[in-house]
């Protein structure tokens, strides 16, 4: 027996309750509950910290820890560079950077690799000068390239343990309820950041738009958030989202789009209640236009569209042709507005989207996905990460997740891009294994993976220009020739992780 803080005799142990802890006072064990209860005219409790520097210190960031960021601000992101500059000034080194992806905005990261602040990187993509820097072998540890679903799996299973997540948000209240569709830096869905907010040890929000409590509906919520920093700007709106994604006028893209749409129509998957995901490339977007016309003509509707949501998808949703939108990333301003306005345009996390080890991800419910490719080989393996010079210039994204999850995965690409063939004997880097790719649609013909005899038979009943993938490769090589093999050093600069956590390929240092 012991007397507790409320002056009651409390036993310390009873059968079934061997470790009873007596009450110690209302505030003793809950540090976040305000102690000024009952006192009038004091500032409301908040988690605001004056500067990023103080937030880094309060979050307890130390040498060797793992920090994370999201890439919803795309090319307009200020957050990653801002935080790393602060960390660098604090003299913290040897960090693992677990960003959902890295964009052209992140060239300054090179300096922080050089000065030893960042010594390990996990990301979906690498581009621009940063991509070249990595490809030239300037980092000791290889980069791990993961898919969007693979990252969510890594974080949820603890393979990537985030110590501090620095999450830029377009709006937040003082307690951490935040969303992506209000404020001048609106980016729409915060799908990638939701995973970090849920699993990181410490969560620091950085926003340029503080709103009245409670900021509902919210994407990241108060029970996940440790600190909030208000800054002047989290990103450049121009780089965060373009207006409506314009429909391409490029005749080649339009041709590919029409063929891709015809494949969908003939595939057997195009029926009432079907579901679809398209990429943001010209041909992909233009396919949506043909889908719309045919859906109206045949009187069918889609149950949902998934993934990166575009203005085209929003338009179809608002016309009632697509009943639900599941959005892990909003590609343009129309999608950003829609996620705020449309009841059935639902934000989803990257885990809900594509984590292969959770209890059910959305890609598994997907009927048709239309994806792009830098290269595809005669085994249907797809490369979306390394260019024709072997340098990192792309992103794994949801490519392999949707290819395997969907019933019908269609790759759209010109047969010849610039002066090089898109269809090759062996792709430089495998992101998506050929066994998960069903159809290749090019401007000069269509090839069906022989594994999909059902699709092949259906397409044979149409006037579509069908070839084997070997025939397409030969057509391409007849015009473009065969490029000389790229030479690489021995050093491995990046590991390509398949969505299940296994390594499907490696990228080597390019010979200078």
């Amino acid at each position: 027996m012991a007397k507790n803080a409320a002056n009651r005799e409390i036993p310390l142990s009873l059968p079934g309750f061997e470790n009873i802890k007596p009450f110690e006072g209302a505030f003793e064990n809950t540090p976040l509950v305000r102690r000024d209860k009952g006192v009038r005219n004091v500032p409301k409790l908040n988690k605001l910290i004056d500067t990023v520097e103080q937030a880094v210190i309060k979050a307890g960031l130390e040498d060797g820890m793992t920090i994370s960021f999201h890439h919803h601000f795309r090319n307009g992101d200020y957050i990653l560079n801002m935080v790393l500059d602060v960390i660098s000034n604090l003299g913290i080194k040897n960090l693992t950077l677990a960003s959902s992806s890295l964009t052209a905005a992140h060239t300054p990261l090179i300096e922080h690799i050089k000065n030893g602040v960042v010594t390990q990187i996990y990301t979906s993509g690498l581009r621009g000068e940063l991509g070249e820097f990595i490809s030239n072998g300037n980092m000791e540890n290889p980069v791990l390239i993961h898919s969007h679903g693979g990252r969510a799996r890594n974080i949820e299973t603890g393979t990537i343990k985030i110590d501090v997540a620095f999450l830029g948000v377009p709006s937040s209240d003082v307690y951490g309820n935040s969303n992506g569709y209000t404020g001048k830096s609106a980016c729409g869905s915060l799908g990638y950041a939701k995973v970090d907010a849920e699993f990181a040890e410490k969560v620091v929000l950085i926003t340029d738009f503080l709103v009245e409590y409670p900021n509902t509906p919210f994407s990241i919520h108060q029970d996940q958030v440790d600190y909030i920093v208000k800054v002047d700007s989290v990103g450049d709106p121009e780089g965060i989202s373009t207006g409506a994604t314009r429909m391409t006028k490029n005749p080649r893209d339009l041709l590919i789009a029409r063929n891709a749409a015809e494949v969908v129509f003939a595939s057997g998957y195009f029926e009432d209640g079907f579901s679809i995901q398209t990429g943001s490339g010209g041909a992909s977007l233009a396919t949506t236009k043909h889908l719309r016309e045919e859906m109206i003509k045949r009187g069918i509707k889609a149950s949902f569209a998934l993934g990166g949501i575009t203005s085209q998808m929003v338009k179809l949703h608002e016309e009632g042709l697509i009943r639900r939108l599941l959005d892990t990333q909003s590609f343009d301003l129309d999608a950003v507005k829609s996620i705020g306005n449309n009841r059935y345009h639902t934000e989803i996390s990257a885990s809900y989207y594509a984590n292969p080890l959770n209890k059910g991800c959305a890609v598994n419910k997907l009927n048709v996905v239309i994806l792009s490719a830098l290269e595809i080989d005669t085994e249907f393996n797809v490369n979306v990460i390394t260019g024709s010079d072997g340098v990192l210039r792309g992103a794994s994204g949801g490519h392999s997740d949707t290819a395997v999850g969907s019933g019908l995965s269609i790759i759209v690409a010109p047969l010849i891009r610039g002066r090089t063939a898109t269809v090759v004997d062996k792709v430089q880097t495998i992101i998506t294994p050929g066994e998960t790719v069903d159809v290749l649609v090019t401007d000069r013909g269509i090839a069906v993976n022989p594994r999909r005899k059902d699709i092949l038979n259906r397409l044979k009943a149409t006037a579509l220009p069908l070839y084997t993938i070997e025939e397409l490769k030969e057509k391409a090589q007849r015009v473009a020739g065969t490029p000389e093999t790229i030479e690489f050093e021995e050093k491995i600069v990046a590991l390509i992780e398949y969505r299940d956590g296994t390594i499907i390929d490696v990228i080597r240092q390019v010979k200078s």
Partner: protein
Amino acid sequence: MEKLRRTMLYVPGNNAGMVKDAHIYRSDSVMFDLEDSVSINEKDSARLLIFNALRTLDYEGIETVVRINGLDTPFGLDDIKAMVRARPDIIRIPKADSADDIKEVEAIIEAEEKLAGLESGSIKLMAAIEGPLGVINAYSIATASKRLVGIALGAEDYVTNMKTKRYADGMEILFARSQIVTAARAAGIYALDTVYSDINNEEGFINEVKLIKQLGFDGKSVISPRQITPVHRIYTPEQKEIDFALRVIEAIHEAEEHGSGVISLDGKMVDKPIVDRAERVLAMAKASGIMVHEDDI
């Protein structure tokens, strides 16, 4: 089956990227231009590019046409010499005003074919009529050579010569169109309409295509791949036309089986114009990608 020439896609002869992909949009013909779209200082390189493209690339059965420079320019003769050896299907003569313009080109082709050891007559000709004199002489132009497969209207020069300009309703070129299509029909060759240059005005383009189809033109020159599908769509027969055509063919088969010389359908006699029209409708339908299962009939 009669060759379809609904669309002839203009491709500037100095644009290697477009030249290599000219056929992928499935126009009925592609026309590599050495004339107006190529500046003076690129005439040689364009000629060389088209020569090599035709000798090297596989255009997968799409008809190839080369528009040469006129013989009144320093480039026309070299164009003909090179193209006879490059073997496009058709050489298109610009600004034809009289039958002599055709005969002159024909004579040079004839001679060059001999020099190159090629079979005589394998390269066909097409002529563009681009001025009032050519319009007046349309029939004599259309009958000037056995090689000539079609005549086309080039309206831009024509309206300038006529002291007018292009209008949306096309009244200013109605006479020229009518004269050319009539001359072509009288000569038994193809009639092709002029270009529509405002590629972003889809509605205006569609109206014009409907008009020229109504006048009896076989097709139209197009300047963007985006113009191909609308033309093909308008020239695609409607299902009821296809159904009727299939029944006409069926009636012919039945008559043949019974050794009957007279063909009748629904109690009416089917004469040659109806059979010709039926065959044309089916050819158009097939070319438009509509599956016509003649086995079913």
